């Protein structure tokens, strides 16, 4: 049961910067050992939340709890956290060894214990032999690893990472993501990282906290967010969303509420060549292909249907489609944006036929 008790908890947190309301009534609970992501566009307040947990900023109101204890008045250095800064903030005038040893030296650990711990961490991050280099002599990926080791050196209970992959080349970034995920799982340390990249959050995190305009929009596992967005913002933000003004023009979608806005995703749309075998042929509508983009492993087909430009994915193994061709478009489901809520609507013909059969 203890596994599910919140280890890091924020209760009704508010924070202003002058007139800017950076954080509004934020409530978050993260269980021990979990890897959570704060995901949101820039200016959504995610970094502010992280900095408040670290004690780098003070909330205007609300409580921050770590391990069940209110830590609002506990200085950041005594909260048992390790922090990895966006640009790593490695001490530029210290060697890698001194950087990692800094936290231990401040705590007056014996020099032999420091040497042992730093050597161990250097091994863990795969940077043995670099201890006498200066940060400027390291690659981006190595700096990130050293920053990670420096944060871990004093054995923190919580690891906080601010945009840990933002400053790294795209190629190394993918590799580091996997590395970081493995490392954190291995150490079983409660971790929270901030990112604006949904792929990163979905791939790395156990739980994602989506923030927007200072509020928490939704908290859940990547799958939950993907298939059950609870707010219009999450529906639009996660996945490659395609906004649609009036979904009632699509066949077999009945009017649901007063609003007609909806969000589609490429995987909700099927595109079929005329005459291609299609289970729901009678329910499909005719669209015109406007553009085809080669994505390597798949094709992105842009098709116009009732004044909406929709994107769908098609396998390269399927019969070829050409620009200008008339095709059958079948929409399996869509998210109806109804005021502040999101409702998943299925194509009615799917239901009917399943009933008939």
């Amino acid at each position: 049961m203890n596994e599910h008790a919140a280890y890091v908890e924020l209760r009704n947190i508010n924070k202003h910067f002058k007139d800017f309301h950076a954080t509004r009534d934020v409530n978050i609970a993260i269980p021990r050992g979990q890897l959570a992501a704060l995901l949101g566009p820039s200016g959504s307040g995610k970094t502010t939340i992280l900095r408040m947990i670290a004690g780098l900023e003070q909330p205007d109101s609300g409580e921050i709890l770590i391990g069940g204890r209110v830590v609002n008045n506990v200085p950041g250095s005594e909260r048992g956290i390790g922090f990895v800064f966006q640009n790593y903030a490695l001490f530029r005038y210290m060697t890698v060894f001194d950087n990692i040893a800094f936290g231990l030296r401040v705590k007056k650990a014996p020099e032999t214990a420091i040497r042992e711990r730093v050597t161990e961490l250097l091994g863990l991050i795969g940077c043995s032999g670099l201890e006498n280099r200066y940060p400027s002599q390291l690659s981006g990926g190595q700096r990130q690893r050293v920053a990670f080791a420096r944060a871990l050196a004093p054995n923190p209970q919580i690891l906080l990472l601010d945009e840990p992959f933002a400053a790294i080349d795209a190629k190394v970034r993918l590799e580091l993501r996997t590395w970081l995920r493995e490392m954190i799982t291995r150490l079983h340390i409660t971790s929270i990282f901030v990112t604006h990249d949904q792929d990163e959050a979905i791939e790395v995190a156990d739980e994602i906290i989506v923030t927007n305009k200072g509020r928490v929009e939704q908290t859940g596992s990547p799958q939950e967010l993907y298939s059950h967005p609870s707010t219009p913002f999450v529906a639009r933000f996660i996945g490659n969303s395609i906004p649609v003004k009036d979904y009632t023009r699509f066949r077999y979608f009945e009017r649901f509420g007063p609003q007609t806005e909806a969000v589609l995703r490429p995987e909700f749309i099927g595109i079929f060549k005329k005459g291609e075998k299609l289970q729901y042929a009678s329910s499909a509508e005719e669209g015109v292909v406007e553009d085809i983009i080669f994505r390597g492993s798949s094709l992105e087909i842009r098709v116009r249907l009732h004044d909406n430009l929709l994107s769908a994915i098609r396998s390269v193994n399927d019969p070829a489609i050409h620009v200008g061709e008339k095709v059958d478009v079948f929409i399996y489901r869509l998210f109806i944006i109804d005021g502040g809520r999101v409702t998943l609507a299925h194509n009615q013909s799917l239901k009917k036929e399943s009933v008939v059969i």
Partner: protein
Amino acid sequence: MEPQTNSGPLKWTLITASAVFLSVFLLLPLAYIVATALRQGMDAYLAAITDKYTCKAAWLTIQATLWAVAVNTVFGIAAAWCLTKFAFRGKKIISTCIDLPVTVSPIIAGLIYLLTFGRQSFLYPYLDSWNIKIIFAVPGIVLATIFVTFPFISRELLPVLTAQGTDEEEAAALMGAGAFTIFRKVTLPHIKWALLYGVVLCTARAMGEFGAVSVLSGHLWGKTNTLPLYIELLYQGYDFTGAFAASSLLVVMAIIILALRLWLERRGSKELDIRK
């Protein structure tokens, strides 16, 4: 590399013009000081610079310079740290106030101290009763010197610390380091060259200050004459050898300062490569 604007004749015309201009305005006065100082021979020169009053004036100049460097270093570090590492209201006002002294004429600098501590000031009766002499005494000279060099060190430190940001200090503080540890281990290495550079600039200006000190000194022989003031006295007394001999001491200092400056600039730009 070289654009075509660098056609031969134009290039050499401009270089010659520059060389002539600088020779006439900068080198000639410098050479003239040395020549005049030595005109009556080495013995007269040595006698002039080892003169009792010259030495006293030189000592007072050194004292005032040391005070100015010390106070402005403490102030410069505190102000730069406070203005760049923390967010608070009124920052702009403080940084404007720091720059004020250099926009004010040295004579006015002297005047404001005269008004603050002189006879007509409301402070004067208190100072008098405690027997503190500021005007026409050494403290006045020291204060004036501090004033005219006030922003010299902080102004060198501010841009360096602004560019450096606060991440490293935050990281150190999160690991539990105290203010002095953070300053010594994290911040100081960033600013040490800028600090030295500021100290050199401050020394140069403090050593040579004339106007402000002139207002406050009262020109008491052997007591409140700094080297530049003493030179004025000698000059007005038509002791040209003495005046130029004393000047040559300051010329030597100026040349040392220029050399130090160049060296520090080169060091500093090398350091920039490490930082990035």
